């Protein structure tokens, strides 16, 4: 194993392990946070930091092959579909009347009648 291969291997494992840690943090947040709306934010850590770091790590493992191109395509598609699904879940919650709890000293923007679905 040459020096460069060793460096790539170390970097790849660094990215994959840190990505896994962020996935774990997202899971911990989902369990710890008190309600639906804050849990949505915990999941978004898994979906952004965890996903990006894991894909970078896997790309380094695959090297300059077709697999890397596919992994990058998966990353691009996740970047488009992730926010869309999050938005769909959040909007569905709002339509069914689940209001986010407001912290002290803050007032939610007034919602229109049609926001109640």
């Amino acid at each position: 194993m040459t020096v460069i291969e060793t460096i790539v291997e170390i970097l790849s494992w660094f990215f994959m392990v840190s990505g896994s840690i962020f996935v774990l943090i997202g899971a911990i947040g989902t369990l710890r946070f008190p309600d639906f709306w804050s849990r949505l934010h915990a999941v978004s850590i898994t979906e952004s930091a965890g996903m990006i770091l894991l894909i970078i790590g896997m790309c380094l493992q695959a090297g300059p092959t077709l697999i890397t191109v596919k992994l990058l395509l998966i990353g691009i598609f996740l970047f488009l579909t992730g926010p869309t699904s999050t938005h769909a879940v959040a909007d569905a919650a709002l339509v069914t009347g689940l209001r986010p709890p407001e912290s002290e000293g803050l007032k939610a923007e007034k919602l229109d009648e049609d926001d109640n679905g």
Partner: protein
Amino acid sequence: MRNIGVIIILFALWLLMSGIYTPMLIGLGLAASLFSLYIVRRMDAVDGARFSLQMSPIRYSGYIVWFMGEVVRANWAVTKIVLSPKMPIKQHLFLVPVTQKTELGKMLFANSITLTPGTITVRVKDDRFLVHALSFSQDDHAATADMDARVTACETEGGK
């Protein structure tokens, strides 16, 4: 002309995805591309909806670089909240003014807000977004306005 372009893009995607170049698989790819084109044309006849990319690729690349930095910062902020024993959550639902003219620009701005952990675009109301923040601070208005200006700068003229 447009049909040939669609065929080429679909077929190139197939070749990229498959990685096995035997005559049968390439033939299947060509058949699949032609069938997709047929479906697309049929759908076009129904609603005729299409849009052009009104984005400057160079400025968009610059935006992506800046945006990645934002994602890292936001991830770190939410990670600290998750792991801190007291969990300093300060939830707030607020409206963000939107200045993009094109649908694509609005989509990019809404997705950018949702992709940065800590903020989620809940609903689009005409020229404003309803945004939910995990730990709201007064700086958030300035931060979203800054992102809004950057996305608008990526748009090219001719937006409807």
